[in-house]
């Protein structure tokens, strides 16, 4: 029944957005929507017996397990922050005429619907239903990318839709194979119900499972920006409004990874895993390599951050390929740490984008001047976020990267060194960009013609909050957190 509460909250939020006329009102509805989801999720985690079988015809379509709740928790934190941030950011888009007032309602409606569909996707027990929800997230997020209705935004959105949806069709063929595989061995007909498939995973025919997983992987890889389907990602993430980039990078990429982990958990229990794990690892390596070397010559901040997302998805994939319980534990931790860090980076980039707006487009070189004088908070946000994302000690990604690397080392030592080198390249690229861009200062005495952009408080608060959260996660490791992640690993039967 608790799922009804989620849907009800979304409906109320959508109704408020539909009825309201002011920007402030719509924005508040979105903030409250996401915050209530956060409250609901924490309530379920603390007070309810997980997994919760949910409503809907014998509860075979939806359920809430720890893994789903974990993803929803991340999503609701990011969405709350991003909604607060959007308050100031969208206001400034409106003022500069980049977003038309008439598109405002569409923007917030898609925003709220996206959150609802995402949560439903994470709570799906039926894999085909999950597929449909994932498709809907593509459509809604593409709408948020295209909302500025400049030609380059529409280009990016269309590219995103075409690549993601076409690949997702392959996934669906994979799901048909999975259904057929289960129909052959289960007495009461085929099913795509994840819980049932997990129970009977060991008897599923392994040849068909390989084909099914390979096809399913194509679709979800495209959704999470894995090589060679990553081409849409830098464009869409760089051209979307920064509040949207943050949710694209921090939440939507997780949908793809979520799907891969769910289906891989089934494959993992069969001999087919031996064939699939190296393939996953290989794709992971290619992804990290492509991302790292694309980051090197990158002169545009948002594109650089977008490529860093691709890199992190590659690391996660490598962690899944290692597929020991320890590796999976740190993969989950990495998903969380990456989401929070990436959102904070995009928030900072958004402030810089407003500051240097007229000179900044996605194709040209960023002209960042006097950044510490004009936008000290955003500058430090980029520096701290950059340190965190490259995995410096004291930040959470340090631990997850370290342990994923260590687990990889137990499988293959050369692979470990290759990955280490690639991570070094990526870190160097980020560092090089920050040092060159942030050290551009007009000489003293010469008057600068750049007006400082007055960053509204609503854009500063979420940024500071996220940075504090990252630091806290890096230095504190609570027992509850560990046992929560442990429960997920057990649920996935690794």
């Amino acid at each position, binding site marked *: 029944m608790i799922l009804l509460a989620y849907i009800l909250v979304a409906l109320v939020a959508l109704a408020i957005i539909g009825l309201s006329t002011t920007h402030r009102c719509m924005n508040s509805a979105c903030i409250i929507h996401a915050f209530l989801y956060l409250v609901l999720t924490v309530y379920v985690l603390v007070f309810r017996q997980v997994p919760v079988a949910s409503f809907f015809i014998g509860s075979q379509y939806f359920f809430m397990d720890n893994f789903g709740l974990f993803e929803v928790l991340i999503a609701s934190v990011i969405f709350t922050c991003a909604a607060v941030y959007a308050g100031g950011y969208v206001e400034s888009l409106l003022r500069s*005429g*980049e977003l038309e007032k008439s598109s405002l309602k569409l923007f917030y409606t898609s925003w709220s619907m996206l959150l609802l569909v995402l949560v439903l996707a994470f709570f799906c027990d*039926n894999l*085909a*239903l999950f597929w*449909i929800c994932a*498709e*809907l997230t593509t*459509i809604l997020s*593409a*709408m948020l990318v*295209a909302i500025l*209705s*400049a*030609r*380059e935004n*529409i*280009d990016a*959105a*269309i590219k995103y*839709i*075409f690549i993601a*949806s*076409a690949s997702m*069709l392959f996934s*669906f*063929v994979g799901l*048909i*194979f999975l*259904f*057929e595989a289960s*129909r*052959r061995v289960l007495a009461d007909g*085929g099913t*795509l119900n994840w819980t049932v498939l997990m129970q009977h995973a060991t008897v599923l*025919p392994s*040849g*068909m499972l390989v*084909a099914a997983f390979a096809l399913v992987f194509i679709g979800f890889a495209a959704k999470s920006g894995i090589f060679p389907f990553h081409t849409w990602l830098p464009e869409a993430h760089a051209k979307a409004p920064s509040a949207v980039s943050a949710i694209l990078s921090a939440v939507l990429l997780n949908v793809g990874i979520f799907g891969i982990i769910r289906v891989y958990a089934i494959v993992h229990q069969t001999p087919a895993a031996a064939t699939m794990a190296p393939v996953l690892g290989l794709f992971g390596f290619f992804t990290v390599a492509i991302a790292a070397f694309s980051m090197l010559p990158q002169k545009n901040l948002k594109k650089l951050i977008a490529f860093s997302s691709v890199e992190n998805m590659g690391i996660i994939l490598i962690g899944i390929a290692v597929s020991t319980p320890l590796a999976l534990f740190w993969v989950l931790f990495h998903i969380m740490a990456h989401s929070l860090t990436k959102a904070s980076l995009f928030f900072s980039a958004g402030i810089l984008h407003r500051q240097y707006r007229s000179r900044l487009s996605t194709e040209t070189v960023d002209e960042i001047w006097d950044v510490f004088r004009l936008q000290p908070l955003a500058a430090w946000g980029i520096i701290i976020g950059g340190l965190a994302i490259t995995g410096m000690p004291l930040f959470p990604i340090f631990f997850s990267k370290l342990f994923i690397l260590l687990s990889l080392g137990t499988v293959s030592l050369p692979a470990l060194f290759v990955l280490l080198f690639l991570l070094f390249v990526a870190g160097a690229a980020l560092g090089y960009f920050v040092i060159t861009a942030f050290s551009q200062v007009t000489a003293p005495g010469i008057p600068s013609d750049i007006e400082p952009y007055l960053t509204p408080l609503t854009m500063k608060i979420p940024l500071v909050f996220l940075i504090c959260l990252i630091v806290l996660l890096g230095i504190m490791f609570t027992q509850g957190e560990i046992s929560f992640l442990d429960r997920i690993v057990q649920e996935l039967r690794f």
Partner: protein
Amino acid sequence: MIEPAIIQGVIKILLVCVIITAAYIISTRNLISLVSMYSLQSVTLACLALALYAYELAPMLLAIAVITFLSKALIIPYFIATIQEKIRIKRDIEFHFLNPTSSLVLSMALMLVVYMALTRILQGTPSRGENFLFFGAVIGLSLMLMGMMVMLSRKRALTKVLGFLSMENGVLIFGMFVTELPFIIEFLIVIDLIILVLLTTILTVGIDSTLEDYHKRLHRFHLLQGEEDRA
């Protein structure tokens, strides 16, 4: 009751028709006949579902036939045709990478690959046993790959949409012949598809458009200047 052998024959003929429409979609340059060809393909699909219904008597197939006919043969083509009139483009002349002849040769090769792959994967399933069911599965996957080729090789976004749609038709054929999915899933997929097509075509207006006001809007953001300087 019609004799099964006749139904199987009809199904095989219909499958061949599907392939012919796909070949036409790959090779034609005329956008208007592209849409009507897609519509024809969807009608063939609905007929296939009906023929399968006569064979297996699963009521689900009847529902699929009705939904397919309504959404894909009527609503979506009508919508695309309206958009087409609006953006005043009649032909899609440019091809990337592949010209029509080589795409046709390539699609034949693809069919062969699909045939060999499915022979291995579907070993021992009922659809491998029945000759025409297996034929349907092969045609379905091939149609999907041919649709993908259209998406890759065409330049106009609207043609790409049609490529995507015929990919989706391929998946539907494949699903019908290999297995039977729960109805609610099929239904939701169709809804999902309609939304997707609506959105992409609306966005396409922005890309393919020659409309005056759209250009005006771009001027305001100084996005068009670079292009015009070059022109």
